[in-house]
């Protein structure tokens, strides 16, 4: 369970998610993404981050939310976790929130097969789902596709 701290919050579909600010490397506008053969569907491809080749994961696809076109606010949140740098495509970045430890509860028990949340923060009116980045990242490496996209799609439809 996450003990709170500063989180970057952003939206994917209707939902707000949060990533520990310390894991964020930078936030970029959408750039050119080159698809990679044999990649799992939620991996859009790779992009050039100042000379380093970095994978780009579409969180809409990852979470099974219906896709939309890249818009003006579409951004790529670049995180650095476990020695790897990865970009996440999100709808919009909201703000940096200070989530006191007390406000964060463990992830709900009915989380389904994919446990990529570390907790849920009730920040004001909306719920902020705090992402477990190491787990989320493990699910997409080229060699280990991890949890199937199917699960995600089903979850999306359930909503």
């Amino acid at each position: 369970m996450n003990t709170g701290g500063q989180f970057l919050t952003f939206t994917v579909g209707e939902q707000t998610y949060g990533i520990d600010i310390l894991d964020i490397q930078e936030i970029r506008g959408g750039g050119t993404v080159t698809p990679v053969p044999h990649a799992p569907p939620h991996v859009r491809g790779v992009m050039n981050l100042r000379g380093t080749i970095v994978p780009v994961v579409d969180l809409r696809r990852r979470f099974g939310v219906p896709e939309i076109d890249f818009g003006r606010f579409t951004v790529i949140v670049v995180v650095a976790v476990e020695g790897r740098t990865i970009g996440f495509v999100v709808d919009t970045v909201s703000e940096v929130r200070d989530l006191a430890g007390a406000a964060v509860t463990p992830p709900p028990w009915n989380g389904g097969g994919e446990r990529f949340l570390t907790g849920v923060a009730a920040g004001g009116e909306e719920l902020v789902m705090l992402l477990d980045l190491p787990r989320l990242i493990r699910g997409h490496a080229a060699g280990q596709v991890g949890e199937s996209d199917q699960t995600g799609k089903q979850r999306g439809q359930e909503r």
Partner: protein
Amino acid sequence: MEIDFSRFRDTFFAEAAELAAELDRGVLALERMGCAGDPGLLHSIFRAAHSIKGNAGMLGLDAIAGFTHSLETLLDRLRDRRVALEPAVTAALVEASAALGQLLEAEREAPGSPPAEGARELAQRLSELAGAGGEASAASGGLHRIRFAPAPDFMRNGLDPLLFLRDLEQAGRVVAVRADSSRLPALEALDPEVCYLAWEIEFEGSRAGIEEVFGLAAGAAQIAIAVTVGEPAGEKFAGEQLPGAEIPAPAPTPPATAAGAPRRRSGSIRVDTDKADKLINLAGELVIAQAMAMSILDGFSSGHVCSSGRMEELREAMAVLGRHTREIQERVMGIRMLSASTVFGRFPRLVRDLAAATGKTVDLEIDGADTEIDRGLIEKIADPLTHLVRNAVDHGIESAERRREAGKPAVGRVRLAAFHRGGSVHIEVSDDGRGIDVDRVKQRAVERGMIPPEADLSPEQARALLFEPGFSTAGTVTGLSGRGVGLDVVRRNVEALGGRIRVDSRPGQGCMFLIALPMTLAILDGLLVRLGGGVFVIPLTAVVESVQLRPGMLVRPAGCGLLLRLRGEAIPALSPGDILGAGATEGRDRPTANRPPANRLAANRLAVVVEADGQRAALLVDDLAGQQQVVVKSLEEHYGPVDGILGATILGATTPGNSSVALIIDVGGLLRMAPVEETPPGRCRGNAGVDARFDACVDAGEEAAAAPGVASGSGRV
């Protein structure tokens, strides 16, 4: 203070490898010179041994320190001419140098592993050789470990332990002294007239000498003398420590980072200081140039008129910046380069040992040892080269009698040469041996069913058979085969580096293997192709030709995959779907900038014929997009390995925001993963969107002659 020595280990081994190589070269040169010797050479060999010993001692690598110590002692005696440079001595030195290399390797692979038995015996022999000529240690030169424990009343009896230690220094060489202060009481209980200390001394000299020194102390002290030839405890290597001085506790041998974890070879680079200095200077220039450009820009924004003169100034400043940037790039690439001597250095010994083992006399000639080669290549080319050199000595060069019969000089000649030619590095391995008997090669190939008996092969084609898998394992064809590992492996290794190999030979006169490698692994010449909406790079070394597709050239007969008919040959063809993997084509969408115009005519498609591992394939591409050098970037670092993809590169960085990533196709990997021969006809139809266009090619029944050579981008040797 605790010092973590483990981080020095890598440095030690890098340095030790260089020193050991120097030592080896020196020792071999010494052997060639015979008894004459050369003081300068001896000195440089001695220095190398001494440095290894010192460094190893510091890191507590006892086995290495001990071994080099005996080597050093012998070299020292040789320098002083106390021992004559006899054949037996040089032979021992040559052997010792090889053993040292093995010790270093063993210690690096498995820290703390006990030294091989052979090394110990060898050390003993070295010590004996060293002792044989030294007058002072005539009786039994060698290392003694002496424990000198004066009785408590030693000093009361008018004796001074220090005097004994000084006398000992006169009698031979004191290697190390360690004071044992364990009997020392607390300060308030200390009696200044009582001798509490004892010493452990490593001493090199005769036993008689020791007994003479300590004769006076007999009865007043406990003296134990043990011969510890070749095995001084490295932890006690304190070099020039004063006798009696307390020597700090030795650092234990650092434990392996994690037991069981495979030890990765360190990826550090040692760079010449002047290379680094030039880079530092250039970086300074870069900063100045940038500041200049910035100040001009500031002038613009602070309201000055944007005159054409100032524009010109800015342009000039940017040009300077660009020049410096390019130079830095070139020099940084230069850091990756090593001289060919780093890999050639091992061959004098290999040839010497092989020649000795086979009873031949072989001279090794090395040319172009200064040729710079990418360090990544150097590491990987060593094994194929070793194989070729071994072949040359073992099978190429004939015995002395045979050579005389053939009217050749009795001494065989093997030549290694490296040179740059046209953007690639060439390495030649040639010998003046018996050469390749083309007829026997053909005969062998027929026996193995590799060619039909009636096949009419040119000598060149026949020689190319040598590189085919399954050929050289035949083993019985003298002059051709190695020891099970064949030339096919050599070829595969060379091709994996993006290189090519070929062989030339004249029967009776010798043969020559020529390896051509790309200048660097970090940059490759690529053919840019459009494929399924994106740009891909095909390494030019793998490209044979590119052909424009005409109706009827692509066929898909029942029972096999798509084929390209080219000049009467059927080449398996890979559609974009095969190359990109199912689903990848539909995924290339919005974020991709490189979209091809939608409706191209099927007749405009191209096939790029590629070759890897002796297999050919035609990659069906949308278009050629040019040819350029690309910098290879790692895809694995943050993403992971991808089958059929070698890496990535960044294209079109005209403006910072507009650079896109292009993937580099690993032709060998692609061919390995695509079951070219067994593709069921319907398999590729999953990617109907892309493949339909090619199907149009297939189905347009008209048979047209092949039109070879649109932009033939051949990178062949």
